[in-house]
């Protein structure tokens, strides 16, 4: 360890300091909301600057355990944005419920620190530890409304299943480590390349792969390892759901990139069929069940499963020989972050007053009650549906095009993805129908969120629109972040 190593991970270090600072500020001025928010958002701003300073540079630190490259920069920026948006949306939600913003922000920033470390990990052990740092705070955030039975129930389900899957993942990692003899990702890849060159892979390695894939598939919420998603998402306080639906999900795909593409790349012919099956199941089940949901939060939870499926199509396309599949994943992650957080933010806005449910009836007549909120929700839902020219359209187009380019079975997968995208219109538009084609229900009060909240909504809305109209910028960044060329 030396100073240049610290410099390389400076965004992570700063993020930890920000979390600490938030707690300190709360101790100095207990129960005050604004100093905490200013500290948290300002700190995240500094983190963002620290990340951007590193843009374009590349190198590794800690003897190859951590890699600074465009992928790290891209994902780190995304994670910081997710954290900032979550805090913006959470403040207005936590306050009326008497939940402390300081602990929330600190735990959230810890989680995001873990995600940022995941993005840069090129070491199996660091990857696992960073993953735990990402998910453990997530369990606590899910149960953050600790007097709410739903919140704690979601949290314990999430925690138990998450720990179970972590153990499974760790078991698999141990075998891969034992067989390849190193924890460094490039070392693993090199060892596996010789394994592949010399013939069949050993049964022990196959078993290890199975355990690892299961663990990662769980974190992504891929079917049939998705069960935690609907309950955890529905039970969590809505801003937390917004965070959970993008943060750990993008983090899980970061793991997939570092682990499957980086370390297990030489075995891609072996994990490709598995990913294809997972993608097909995930898209289809997520969509089919989402159609039947009457609770918008739960519907969005199932739909987030479906989106996992689409993203997996990009991974499969990569394994099928199409490099751009990975750029597609990154673009999808960015687009999904904005539109999905936006959708959850609107739900949050409606639930600002405690006791308002997220049943679809809550949305009745929203388009007339509050044209701005309605229009934004419609924008997010249409983008999630994949209607051009919004962000979600390009996201889907990218992964599907990559799959078609890869050819073979992936063409079938691409067609399946399109069928699923078409079916998805049903449940997203159902909400639009409620907003614009139903009379408002009596007790629905206007939401009128605060300025901070509105800023967050504006950012997600503009992001969804801009990513759709000018996708070039993000696409170029995603392309540059695809460091696995060649």
């Amino acid at each position, binding site marked *: 360890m030396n100073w240049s190593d610290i410099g390389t991970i400076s965004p992570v270090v700063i993020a930890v300091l920000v979390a600490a600072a938030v707690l300190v500020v709360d101790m100095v001025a207990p129960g005050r909301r604004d100093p905490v928010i200013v500290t948290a958002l300002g700190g995240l701003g500094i983190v963002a600057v620290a990340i951007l300073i590193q843009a374009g540079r590349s190198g590794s630190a800690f003897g190859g355990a951590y890699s600074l490259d465009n992928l790290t920069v891209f994902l780190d920026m995304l994670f910081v944005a997710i954290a900032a948006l979550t805090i913006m949306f959470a403040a207005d939600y936590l306050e009326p419920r008497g939940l402390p913003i300081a602990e929330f922000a600190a735990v959230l920033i*810890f989680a995001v620190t873990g995600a940022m470390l995941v993005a840069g990990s090129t070491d199996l052990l660091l990857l696992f530890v960073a993953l735990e740092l990402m998910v453990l705070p997530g369990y606590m955030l899910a149960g953050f409304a600790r007097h709410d039975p739903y919140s704690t129930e979601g949290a314990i389900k999430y925690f138990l299943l998450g720990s179970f899957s972590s153990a499974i993942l760790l078991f698999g990692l141990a075998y891969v480590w034992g067989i390849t003899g190193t924890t460094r990702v490039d070392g693993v890849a090199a060892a596996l390349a010789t394994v592949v060159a010399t013939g069949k892979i050993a049964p022990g390695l196959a078993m290890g792969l199975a355990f690892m894939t299961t663990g990662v598939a769980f974190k992504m919420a891929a079917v049939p390892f998705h069960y935690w998603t609907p309950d955890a998402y529905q039970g969590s306080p809505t801003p937390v759901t917004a965070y959970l639906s993008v943060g750990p999900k993008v983090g899980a795909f970061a793991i997939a990139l570092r682990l499957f593409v980086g370390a297990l790349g030489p075995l891609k012919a072996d994990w490709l069929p598995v990913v294809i099956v997972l993608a097909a199941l995930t898209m289809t089940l997520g969509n089919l069940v989402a159609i039947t949901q009457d609770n918008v939060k739960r519907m969005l939870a199932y739909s987030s499963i479906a989106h996992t499926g689409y993203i997996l199509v990009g991974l499969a396309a990569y394994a099928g020989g199409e490099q751009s599949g990975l750029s597609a994943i990154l673009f999808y992650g960015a687009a999904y972050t904005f539109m999905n957080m936006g959708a959850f933010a609107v739900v949050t806005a409606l639930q600002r007053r405690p006791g308002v449910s997220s049943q679809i009836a809550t949305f009745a007549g929203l388009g007339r009650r509050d044209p701005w909120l309605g229009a934004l929700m419609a924008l997010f839902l249409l983008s999630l549906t994949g209607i051009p020219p919004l962000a979600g359209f390009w996201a889907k187009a990218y992964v599907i095009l990559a799959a078609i380019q890869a050819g073979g079975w992936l063409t079938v997968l691409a067609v399946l993805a399109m069928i699923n995208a078409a079916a998805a219109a049903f449940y997203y538009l159902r909400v639009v129908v409620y907003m614009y084609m139903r009379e408002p229900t009596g007790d629905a009060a206007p939401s009128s969120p605060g300025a901070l909240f509105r800023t967050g909504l504006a950012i997600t809305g503009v992001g969804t629109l801009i990513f759709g109209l000018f996708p070039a910028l993000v696409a170029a960044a995603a392309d540059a972040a695809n460091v696995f060329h060649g």
Partner: protein
Amino acid sequence: MPISDSIPLVGIRWDDVLFVVLAAALLGSALLVVTLRDIIRCGLALTASLASLAGIYALLGNPLVAATQVLVYIGAISVLILFAIMVTQTKNAPVRLAFQTQAWIAAVAAVAIAIVISITVLATTWPAGGQRLWTATTEVAHLLFSDYVLPFEVVSVLLTAAVVGGVYLARRESGPREEDRS
């Protein structure tokens, strides 16, 4: 006088005997952990199985990890047991039924997992020598603070985060009890 490697006359190696004894203790106590009805006894069985594991670690030539195992887990497990007592001694939750209705399927699944692991392990030729190696503590310390210093630091952050969040969640405090219909 050095003791010979194997038991005189019978010809079975001493460390094989030790291994069998420890393995049996480990599996037996682990089975007790998952089958005993009384949660306090479960906790005691868990302590026993973790202690057997510590023995196996020592047998594997890793006294440092064995020692850590004993220290950390005995501490952690006692907390678990205490907590189990605290939780289960309420009148509302007697330890009536320890098992899920799906216990049989669970048993089948667990056996299947055991079989899968065993078969694949046995079917694989490991790149391993036939002799156990001894690990010196200084080497471990050196490696931990060179190659693995970042994971080590991250674990410390992780523990901090766990404590911050854990204290918040577990803190007893008279707050407004909000019912959110979600």
